[in-house]
């Protein structure tokens, strides 16, 4: 479809509403946060306008570098786990009868309605020594004695994958539904087993969707601050945990804002890299 380029000011009218939304809900809060990150903290939890870099300086330490590194690593791990699990799951889901699909989608949506707190406590019960899943393994004779599986990295990862999985499926679902089912049939007639057809046709044909989904889950996971605390040890705490800690418990808004700004910048940088890498791959 060819579109006329806008001629008069009024032609930009349709852009007005989205632009307003973007300004009110994104630009203004983000600008406020950037401003606060340069402010000076007052004893007692307040801050006054100023321009100082100490908040950022404090951040430049090995401790925070480690936390940042761990946060990114955790978010990447969650994103990869979710996508790797969700693609086959969603693919099989789209091949099922309409009714079955609806039941699964409703179930996934109901997981979305659970708050992070409920998910966290549910998993901490499931991973506990007294009431956890290891008791089932003991009953089945696979383990000699029940043990606690948390706090641990595995528990944090499981909880976060569980939380992000429904989003992943819901983002992948439309693309997979739209994927022409005759593509895999064609691959099969051309000599590919169903599994080979999946890896040589479905996955490559969805490359852009998969990249977009990875980025989405990655960003979603970066923001998680309750699950690492509920299911992990202090060394499993992410930058989001520290930001929450500074903002709410230490009442140090400027420092929290500085960390948040830094996190946003690093995230944007990584996303840009991914997109550029994707473009390069496409051109090659």
């Amino acid at each position, binding site marked *: 479809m060819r579109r006329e380029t806008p001629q008069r000011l009024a032609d930009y009218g349709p852009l007005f509403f989205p632009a307003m939304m973007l300004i009110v809900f994104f630009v203004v809060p983000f600008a406020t946060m950037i401003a606060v990150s340069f402010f000076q903290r007052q004893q007692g939890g307040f801050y006054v306008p100023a321009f100082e870099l100490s908040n950022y300086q404090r951040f430049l330490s090995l401790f925070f570098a480690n936390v940042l590194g761990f946060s990114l690593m955790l978010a990447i791990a969650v994103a990869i786990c979710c996508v790797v699990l969700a693609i086959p799951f969603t693919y099989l889901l789209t091949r099922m009868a309409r009714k079955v699909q609806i039941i699964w989608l409703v179930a996934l949506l109901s997981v979305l309605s659970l708050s992070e707190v409920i998910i966290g406590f549910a998993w901490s019960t499931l991973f506990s020594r007294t009431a956890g899943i290891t008791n089932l393994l003991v009953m089945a004779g696979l383990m000699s004695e029940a043990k606690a599986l948390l706090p641990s990295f595995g528990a944090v990862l499981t909880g976060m994958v569980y939380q992000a999985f429904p989003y992943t499926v819901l983002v992948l679902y439309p693309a997979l539904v739209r994927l022409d089912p005759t593509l895999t049939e064609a691959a*099969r007639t051309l000599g590919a087993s169903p599994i080979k057809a999946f890896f040589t046709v479905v996955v490559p*044909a969805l490359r852009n969707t998969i990249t977009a989904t990875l980025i989405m889950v990655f960003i979603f996971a970066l923001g998680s601050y309750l699950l690492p605390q509920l299911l992990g040890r202090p060394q499993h705490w992410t930058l989001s945990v520290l930001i929450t800690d500074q903002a709410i418990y230490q009442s140090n808004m400027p420092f929290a804002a500085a960390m948040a700004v830094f996190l946003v910048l690093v995230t944007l940088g990584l996303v840009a890299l991914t997109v550029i890498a994707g473009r390069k791959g496409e051109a090659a």
Partner: protein
Amino acid sequence: MSGLALNNVTKEFGTFTAVNNVDLTVPHGTFVCMLGPSGCGKTTLLRMIAGLDLPTGGAIRLDGDDITRVPTHKRNLGMVFQSLALFPHLTVGENIAYPLRIRSAPKEDQKKRVDELLSMIHLSGYADRPVSKLSGGQRQRVAIARALSISPKLFLLDEPLSALDAKLREAMQVELRQLQQKLGITTIVVTHDQREAMTMADTVVVMNRGEIRQAASPIEIYRRPADTFVADFIGSTNLLEAEADSAGRVTVLGQPVAGISLGPNISKATLSVRPEDVHLTAPGDGALSGTVTFVRDLGGTIETFVDVAGRQIIAVSTPRARPDVSVGQPVGVVLLPDVCVVLAK
């Protein structure tokens, strides 16, 4: 036997029978067109031959081996889908090389075969184009080349040309037929279009409601339809009720005609007469008497509509043999015995 054989192949979807007891042998190297109205089970039958659907009854044999339950990817066939199903993430060359890549053929062989196929479909030099940058006809050819790249035992096409415009379609029909003859490959094409079937096929299979009504050469199907459905479906025809008395004298539409026999002990039948076989003369003996109701002069042909005892008979003639008639004029309709096909009621 070399070739494809279907024995009592049946496919039921729940209580609905989409393909019913189909028996068909396709000798090696034959070009078969399956023709029939929408929903008659052509696609379902083709998908069962490809292994994409499993029959609920019967057996499919290829070169003597029972392949009824062999998974699709082990059947070594080539199939062209109606949507073409070209892989959007691959280039033209990669699409054509896909079956070879899947079978881990050496890279040089793949390249050689791709070049060979591209020149066969007149698209040399297109190997590195993305498939999205091709025209409809070019995509069509790429889909055909991809299906042929392993030299399959069986070449299946489901309405391969339906997305093309009429002119391109006719050109592709000829091309496809020539290609098939050159390669000598057993080919089955599903189509809606009877001209297409007549152009390409060695054998036309006419289906209706999941059953094969007739399988024969195009000209035989046209000249000797097996039943009223086939006669009516292939080309246009005049179907006229005929009755015979105990002495064998035949009346058509209540008027006596000479020279036609319905066969022994048959009192009622339907006559099928192609419009080009209907001759108009002056009213008189041995001809059905009727009245001209409409004349359509199409330049190349002239269609005359004649009302005989309340039934409309269409006669087609060339301008050279133009009957001297006008609307409202009484005429005689001659049914020549050797071109009338008697069909059981």
